[in-house]
């Protein structure tokens, strides 16, 4: 199959979504910086959105998947705002945003 034709197929959308998800999981697991972890979560949410939109077109030909993607985008925005506020707060407390330093409950 021609790669240009493949790019428009459902499979291409799903593969891109899966790869984005894997990269996001890798970022969440490997980053020590809390903002780096947040970036990984954004990638994961985008991967979910791609899958919703792809199935909305290729399977259902209906709007429902796009509505859910809209919800995902909104939740991602709210999550980013709260997460960054928490990070700012944490930075004032510890002078670092390294996730390893968030161990007050452990003592």
């Amino acid at each position, binding site marked *: 199959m021609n790669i*240009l034709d493949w790019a428009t197929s459902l499979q291409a959308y799903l593969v891109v979504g899966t790869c984005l998800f894997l990269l996001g999981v890798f970022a969440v697991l490997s980053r020590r910086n809390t903002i780096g972890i947040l970036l990984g979560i954004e990638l994961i949410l985008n991967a979910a959105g791609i899958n919703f939109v792809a199935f909305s077109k290729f399977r259902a030909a209906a709007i429902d998947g796009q509505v859910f993607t809209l919800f995902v985008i909104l939740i991602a925005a709210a999550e980013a705002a709260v997460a960054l506020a928490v990070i700012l707060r944490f930075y004032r407390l510890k002078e670092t945003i390294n996730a390893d330093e968030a161990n007050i409950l452990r003592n």
Partner: protein
Amino acid sequence: MDVDFPREIHDAIGDGAIMENGMKLVLLLAQVMTLVSALVVVLHPNILYATIFLLFSFLGVAVMFVFAGADFLAGAQVIVYVGGVTILVLFAIMLTQWLYEAKLKTTLMKGLIPFIVVMGALGPILIKETLKLSDSVSATPPEKMGEFAALAKTQLIGQALLGNYLLPFEAITILLLGALVGAVWLARPE
């Protein structure tokens, strides 16, 4: 629903069978850009550059949305992510660690276990299942997909939000309000 889109737009965002090669190339490039930028986001040692490449990844996803017939979502993606979330993250970086600690602490050893988890276990399973799934899904007829892609999505989404999805819509407005007020309260000066 009758929408008088020009035939060319219908063809451009419709089914792959009648899409021009140039348009397909744009889609392919967008997909490649999304993944390459995401790779930089994951691996770049400087968080500032990682965030800026996240912006390109989001833009690639927006282009993919356009080609899947989700024009309204592509706009929302650009406005919310590119104009909102990325800028917010850049502000947070500059407020916390801009001058002296911009390097991320991701040494090779710390990345090794996540790499094994992702590439050794999660990745192969997910990719295999994805390929199996996309083969087994019975595709909608191309004409129906083209018809759907050419519909005016803003109208449909508006109707869905105030119809079937009214409760989630109201819930999410309250969530957004609570999250934003909470964020302002958390980040308030001492």
